[in-house]
């Protein structure tokens, strides 16, 4: 396997995506405005404790930002007729998929890092295990960027359709993942549903980093997120390969 070719291809694809897609309106709306408005809607006027709310808010921000770039890229490229040309360059479908994931992950990392720095410095929140937050942010960015890549896989060359589909998938997840109701307060069906969502495990790691305790073991959280990442990428590859000819 040509590792240098793979890495170089992933880097160029990611650079292309950053240059072209970061400033597209859907990324701004679905990646930045949505989590901001949700935060305002749930936080303002409810006298919630920031220490309790922050892990969920950070996880939600990372979830939305990291998964907002991926769904846009492939439909946009197919619509603009650049996708076929991209496939003719010295890259493979897997390299394109990884490049899209890296671009999404970097977007999530940058925005979340800014918010973390802002909250820690301005609001003076205390973080029990800062290193865990770093690992959580990195891992969460990759997992949800992979989700973004999967959401781009259906055979559509209409970005708005894909963005609608991605909202349909992402919105329910934030309500079952312990963001607005802390995981420790969930029980029965609520907790069962929460375990099905990858976002739950990110919220849990952020909670551990902030308070020093969590519902699940942090190592388990990391393993589950890694497993989700691999599964999302494998399914994305399969679906994209199947839909390769559609929209060329």
């Amino acid at each position, binding site marked *: 396997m040509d590792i240098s070719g793979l890495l170089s291809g992933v880097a160029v694809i990611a650079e292309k995506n950053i240059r072209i897609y970061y400033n597209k309106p859907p990324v701004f709306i679905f990646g930045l405005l949505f989590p901001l408005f949700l935060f305002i809607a749930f936080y303002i006027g409810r006298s919630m404790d920031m220490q309790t709310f922050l892990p969920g808010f950070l996880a939600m921000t990372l979830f939305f930002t990291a998964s907002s770039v991926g769904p846009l890229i492939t439909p946009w490229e197919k619509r603009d007729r650049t996708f076929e040309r991209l496939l*003719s360059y010295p890259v493979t479908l897997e390299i394109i998929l990884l490049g899209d994931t890296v671009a999404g992950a970097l977007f999530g990392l940058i925005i979340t890092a800014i918010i973390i720095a802002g909250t820690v410095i301005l609001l003076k929140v205390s973080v029990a295990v800062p290193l865990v937050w770093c690992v959580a942010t990195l891992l969460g960015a990759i997992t949800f960027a992979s989700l973004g890549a999967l959401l781009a896989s259906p055979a559509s060359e209409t970005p708005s359709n894909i963005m609608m589909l991605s909202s349909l998938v992402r919105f329910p997840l934030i309500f079952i993942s312990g963001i607005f109701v802390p995981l420790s307060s969930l029980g029965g069906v609520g907790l069962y549903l929460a375990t099905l969502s990858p976002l739950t495990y990110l919220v849990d790691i952020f909670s551990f980093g902030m308070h020093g305790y969590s519902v699940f073991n942090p190592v388990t959280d990391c393993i589950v997120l890694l497993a989700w990442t691999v599964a999302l990428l494998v399914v994305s590859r399969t679906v994209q390969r199947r839909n390769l000819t559609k929209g060329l």
Partner: protein
Amino acid sequence: MSSAAIRGDALTKRFNSFLAVNDISIAVNEGEFFGFLGPNGAGKTTTIRLLTGILPPDSGSVEIAGINLSSHPLMAKMLMGVIPEHSTIYGDLTPVQNLNLVGKFYRMGARERDERIQELIPRLGLSEHRDRQVRVFSKGMKQRISIGCAILHRPRVLFLDEPTEGLDVQSRRLIVDIMRELQAEGTTIFLTTHNIEEASTLCQRVAIINRGSLVAVERPEVLKQTFETSKSVRVSFSRDVPAGFLENEDVSRITETGDKFILYTANPDAVVKEVVRRADREGLTITSLQISGPSLEEVFVHLTGGN
């Protein structure tokens, strides 16, 4: 015998129950200008996608300069430049940014990219537009950048799928000139086109595909010679001629196009002599007279089952 720059062996591709490409084998020699013709829906674009690694074949294999495309896709693609049929370049970027991006895909260093871009931008007639976003460009200008993206890394093999389709005369000429220059420098060119005249004048060999299968692979002139019976004499006069004036036992069919008559015959020498004799007798001035062999278009129509 020269080595094959492109070798497709027993390529087959189905889309559900539709057989798009049926057991096609093609070998294009190093440095050859190869034309690929066929009616709409014959399988041209699918074949070119299989040969360039854009689509995987259901069966069969492709080698580019001896490198298997399936097992070493990155190495094989490094040797290619491709201009897909409908594909374009990034509208959000300028010509220079597009070319730079492509250079990075081909792992060209910054200096090498810069030098090559400085060389290509004026050659493509884009000096005044080098830093404007491509989205505002005309189709011809976009196609020039598209060509630039395909040849930036000096590929050994260049695939062009309908590169001059719908372009203005200047852009078409520029692209044809560039193709000729590249071939003179030793680049192997695989050209898909609807423009049969273009294929006839540019290509050393042509392949004709119909309903997913190859029906001919030959030099254009050799193909034409296989259809000797469709030789013709084209003649025009300074004024109208009476009905039946050109009828002759050596002429199998007469068609009138504009101010010209086309007389189909197996014996053009006899027909020309007779036409000149009759025109002289009637005091007619012959404004043009030409003997034509069968055109590649006629061969194409015959082989693809057209009328």
